[in-house]
């Protein structure tokens, strides 16, 4: 009787050992496959840039007062037709911020006139403050097939700039920037104690 009980216990122990071994093997395989902690072999490459110096080309003192900032994105598509096979295509999305305002370096002598609690400002016209407004580093390469030259990419950049300018620098946005300039400068001069603020803009 005792012998039979020992044999039964032995069989149970073996079964439990087999179950434990199977579960541990499954766990090991799973971790190896998914978490890659036990054994993993892969081909990798670095995707970060090297350390290189930054050169300051120029430093300028400016006096540009920005009253309207228009952030824009333009999709530019370029296609090169091939006689045989599929056409080459390059699609890029450019990002730019067009800033409208006044350049105080263009203000005339005596552009601020005060009299008691009144002030009159004769401001230069509102315009696009900088012709270079595209942040090419934020460009998104949307689609590329074939090989594209530097010249083609330059042309796409200037096309994007033309499109942005055409879309964002309009009589309406210039007028809006002028309205903002009046409101902001009136508020600013009122903080200096002037109760009446008159503002005029030079013609373009």
């Amino acid at each position: 009787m005792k012998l039979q009980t020992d044999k039964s216990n032995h069989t149970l122990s073996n079964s439990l050992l087999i179950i434990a071994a199977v579960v541990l093997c499954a766990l090991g395989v799973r971790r190896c496959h998914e978490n890659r902690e036990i054994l993993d072999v892969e081909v990798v490459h670095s995707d970060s840039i090297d350390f290189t110096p930054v050169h300051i080309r120029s430093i300028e003192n400016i006096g540009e007062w920005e009253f309207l900032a228009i952030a824009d994105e333009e999709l530019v598509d370029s296609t090169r037709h091939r006689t045989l096979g599929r056409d080459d295509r390059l699609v890029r999305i450019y990002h730019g911020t067009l800033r409208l305002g006044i350049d105080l370096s263009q203000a005339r002598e005596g552009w601020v006139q005060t009299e008691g609690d009144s002030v009159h400002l004769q401001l230069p016209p509102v315009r696009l403050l900088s012709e270079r407004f595209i942040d090419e580093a934020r460009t998104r390469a949307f689609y590329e097939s074939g090989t594209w030259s530097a010249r083609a990419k330059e042309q796409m950049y200037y096309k994007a700039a033309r499109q942005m300018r055409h879309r964002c620098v309009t009589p309406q946005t210039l007028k809006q920037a002028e309205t903002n300039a009046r409101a902001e400068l009136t508020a600013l001069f009122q903080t200096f104690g002037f109760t009446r603020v008159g503002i005029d803009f030079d013609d373009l």
Partner: protein
Amino acid sequence: MKQKALFFIATLALTTLLGTACTSATVNEQTAEAALDESVADSLDLVMAIARTSRLHTAEYHVHKIVTHSDVKFLRTTVLGRTLDTRLSLGDRKIAIPIDVTLKAYIDFSGFNESQIERSDDGQKIHIILPDPKVVVTSSKVDHERTRQYTDILRSDFTDEEMTAFTSQGVRSILRTVPQLGILATARQSAARTLIPLIASMGYSEGDIVITFRKEFTEKDLPQLIDNERSVVKF
């Protein structure tokens, strides 16, 4: 006793297996959530945004950098959490991208108010505390004509997507050097040069006008004040 120990081992193994499966599911859910967020952000980026501002740009820096990248392949072997990288001789790829970046320092007057102006009792002297200066990347341009890439025969050319990613990294690295560029001091001097004649025309003598920033910023302050928005650095 032996049976109990074996039963405990088996239970532990099963629990761990289930735990791993649950963790894996959570990770997948998080990845899906992140992907959803990214798609929302992408669609928002396509909207043309118009913002009313009152920013006095006082200093402009033109900065040049040659962004370089060396693409070397490694065989990465991970054994029990330990990683060993072995360089593979499959051929190298290298690229050099010259970029020109324009940085402008500006003072945002949109929140300027009377609390930032102090006058002496006799009204002869005025002290203006300027809002904190900020630096913005107003443009960046890749010199495509001078971009050079060198690829071995077994490797493919760099794609447009890879090149734009390196350019973006290049601008980010320029932003990290802003504290060393001295743009803060230039912004302050230039602001004074623009504002002192303006305030003098209100009837103050130039010698009685003092223009300062909210606090004396040191190099140590700058890294903590970099904004999350890539193109704007606050001081």
